[in-house]
């Protein structure tokens, strides 16, 4: 056995260990979060934690419902805005746009994906908050500080555009050209082909792309923290402030070690986020992998 083979052997084994470790990390994270939140899980029943609206850490009351409701509101608004816009953009980019236009639009989308969430937050504070406060709220005859569900939803929607667009374009591009040509040769118009053939064929993948985007919206922290208003109540309208889970974690890290069970409660919040995002991602990735395999 010479030196070269030894290096190959050891190097290979080492790389295998690293590779397996990188996968195990995910399990390790789940385990770490469960271990950290076990203190509160063993003291309070799960349904109280999830569905009680009493949030008073000083008195030992941890009802996450206002935060869960806030998260769902904000993500819901973002979804309603982002899905149609991103989907149409993706269809345009994959079916209609020429090489030149793609060359212009794609860098825009990449840049949009690269902008840090804190910058989105600053943008939200500078532009969307006053916009909602001065124009949208009076339009409905209500008053709003601008720091509300709608604002957070708009900012989040822009943040998840790139995720949905990129994955959708990939999925649409995987639809074989023959399928399109067959439809066109039967006399279908371009739009009919897109709607009834391409989209139908790509539907599972497109749904997966949207789910990925929504999962991203669930966990976004800084931008939401800066514009959602952060009042621990269940929002009743678009103009009410919300206090989503990630903002809760981010805002209270300072106190969490001084109040009993508080740290465990915050880790439980992180675990909730992790669980939702994990589930969403796993399902949509499984769908995407299956599609990719079907093509090859």
């Amino acid at each position, binding site marked *: 056995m010479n030196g*070269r*083979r030894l290096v190959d052997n050891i190097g*290979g084994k080492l*790389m*295998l260990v*690293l*590779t*397996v470790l*990188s*996968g195990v*990390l*995910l399990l390790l*994270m789940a385990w*770490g*979060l469960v271990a*950290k939140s076990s203190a509160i899980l063993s003291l309070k029943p799960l349904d109280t934690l999830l569905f009680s609206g009493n949030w008073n850490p000083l008195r030992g009351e941890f009802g996450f419902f206002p935060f869960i409701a806030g998260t769902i509101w904000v993500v819901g608004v973002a979804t309603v805005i982002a899905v*149609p*816009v991103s*989907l*149409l*953009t993706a*269809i*345009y980019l994959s079916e*209609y746009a020429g090489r030149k236009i793609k060359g212009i639009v794609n860098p*825009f989308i990449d*840049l*949009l994906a*690269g*902008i*840090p*969430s*804190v*910058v*989105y*937050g*600053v*943008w939200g*504070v500078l*532009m969307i908050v006053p916009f909602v406060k001065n124009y949208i709220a009076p339009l409905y005859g209500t008053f709003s500080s601008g720091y509300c569900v709608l604002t957070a939803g708009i900012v989040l929607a*822009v943040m998840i*555009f790139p995720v949905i*667009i990129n994955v959708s374009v990939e999925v649409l591009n995987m639809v074989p050209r023959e399928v399109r040509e067959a439809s066109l040769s039967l006399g279908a118009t371009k739009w009919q082909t897109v709607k009834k053939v391409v989209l139908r064929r790509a539907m599972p993948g497109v749904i997966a792309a949207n789910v*990925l985007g929504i*999962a*991203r919206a*669930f*966990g*976004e*922290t*800084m931008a939401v923290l*800066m514009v959602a208003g952060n009042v621990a109540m269940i929002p009743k309208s678009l103009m009410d402030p919300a206090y989503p889970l*990630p903002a809760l974690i981010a805002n209270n*890290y300072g106190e969490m070690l001084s109040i009993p069970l508080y740290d465990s409660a915050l880790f439980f919040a*992180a675990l909730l*986020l*992790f669980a939702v*995002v994990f589930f969403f991602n*796993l399902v949509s990735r*499984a769908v995407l*992998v299956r599609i990719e395999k079907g093509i090859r």
Partner: protein
Amino acid sequence: MLLSTAIVMFSLLLILGTIVVKGLPALSLDMITKAPESGYYLGGGGGILNAIVGSLLLAAGASVVSMIFGIPVALYLNIYLTRKSKLAEVIRVALDVMCGVPSIVYGAFGFAIMLYLGVRASLLGGIIAVSLLIMPVMIRAIDEVVRLVPHELIEASYSVGANRFETVFKVVVRQTLPGIISAVLLGFGRGIGDAASVLFTTGFTDRISFSLLEPVATLPLAIFFQLGTPLPEVQQRAYASAFILTVIILVLSLSARFLVSRYGRHMVK
């Protein structure tokens, strides 16, 4: 459809425009050359050099750590494992899921690790959390590049007697270097811009610190704290800081693009 595409592009322009219009006038030389002086958050003199230095140190440290762990993984997935490997498939899905895990969860997990190790909020803690955050992104980006290496090239390497390890590090790495660098820059950019994961783990300080075990300031948090003050002059500085951060991100992103197009032509097609 054109309208939607226009909305997407317009929103980017709107964001950049807002940051430039609000940030540029507030920018001064002091901002980028001085650490905060006493009473900075009440409108006193100084700048955010502490945060710029801290963020660069943090992102560089985390990039190096994730490179050391990430590059071998990406290479292993493609060269040592075959296309049909179940292990590779499982790892790829796990990594994709990890790319989707929110950064605040990485922050919380990093914090748990730090409690376990007995490390307090410091540059080291931040590097741990941010490396975990950017590693999956980096691995998947490199993975995509390595996947495109022509199989003939690898076989040519084997046929002249190189073993897999030599093929990986002397042929594949050289072939994909621009892609690897741009993946590292992608990770660096992600690391420098992320706030939620460093919130618990790096702490914050007004001094310029280079020690691994001391807290350091980071740009996103500096923006966040300055924006949180009630004083308009300090908020102005938050806009200027956001401008600085955005410029750094844009430069990184453009240089990654440039590298790929400039050095991509030396690759064997």
